[in-house]
């Protein structure tokens, strides 16, 4: 899903490690069919995965999907840089 978005030049989902480890591209699949590869359990619990909360970089759509973006990048360094 994430690769597809990047190829279209879109930016809705934040792009992190692209490998399922960092949790940045967390989304909720509201509607549609999909398959997922292994994702870090630090970011997606078993319960979350069961209710359609997944990492976009590890998810392959199998139909059109309605998606809600949950993830975002936490800024390093607490002040003065933004």
């Amino acid at each position, binding site marked *: 899903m994430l690769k597809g978005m990047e190829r279209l030049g879109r930016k809705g989902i934040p792009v992190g490690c*692209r490998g399922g480890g960092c949790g940045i591209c967390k989304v909720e699949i509201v509607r549609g069919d999909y398959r997922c590869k292994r994702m870090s359990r630090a970011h997606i619990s078993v319960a979350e995965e069961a209710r359609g909360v997944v990492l976009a970089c590890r998810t392959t759509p199998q139909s059109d999907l309605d998606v809600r973006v949950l993830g975002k990048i936490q800024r390093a360094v607490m002040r003065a840089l933004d």
Partner: protein
Amino acid sequence: MAMTGVLRPGHVQLRVLDLDEAVTHYRDYMGLIETHRDSQGRVYLKGWDEQDWFSVVLREADEAGMDHMAFKVLDEETLWRLQGDLKKFGCQLERIAAGELDHCGERVRFTAPTGHLFELYANKDHYGNGIATTNPAPWPEGLKGMQAVRFDHCLVYGEDLDGSVKLFTEVLGFQLTEQIMDGDLQLAAFMTCSTKAHDVAFIRQAGKGKLHHASFLLKTWENVLRAADIISMKDIAIDIGPTRHGLTRGQTIYFFDPSGNRNEVFCDDSYVYPDTPVLTWTADRTGQAIFYHSRELNDRFMGVTTGA
């Protein structure tokens, strides 16, 4: 003055989501040499120009991140002396038996104030670098991929930067080489136990125990550019680069392993002696400190970490 105390980074143990994919990445693409697999299924690798049995351990797990980073110390006397000093500092300590990692002696494990697990050890079996010690060739044949020379350092994130810097400098004898300062607040600290630009580095961020990257040395800028080619050829997730850092002057490229752990390969960074002045980057120049050419911070580089 001979080198005493902590000598160098010894190894990093990384958690990976899929072991086979990780081994392909570290062995075939980065060119680390696989030297062992243990009974727990962990894979051991080393850079070609490292003498000890391993500097990277990959453990399959359901989370990515760094299990621990270990440093080699001069000898057993040093190991026990530093253990005593760590205890006085107030660290939570654990002794890990010799052989818990095959080919590695007893380790002293401690939790740094930033939440990271570090270890010290004195003994690891010798493997060699593939070159004779009499009338040696300059490099061994059969190297693959990026031909990583050695495991060089880790950069980690944590809230109690001050505590970890105090631990590494006052207890373990590391020297501060470069820093980012926002007035009186230290935002980043780079430290060495030898003459390198850094053997470990910390950046201040809310949270504990996160890994920013594990870094491996290459020989030349051409090697870094070639690594960038391999990253594209093998469809590896790139983060940023190739470019130069202001901090350390290293010429670098960042990318992710298949589990999302960030890797760096770099060359030609700076060096220090005990009398070398500390270099300071002011917070307003953080962009240039990290990316000397673009002079712009990058959200993904700053914000994406694995672990904890």
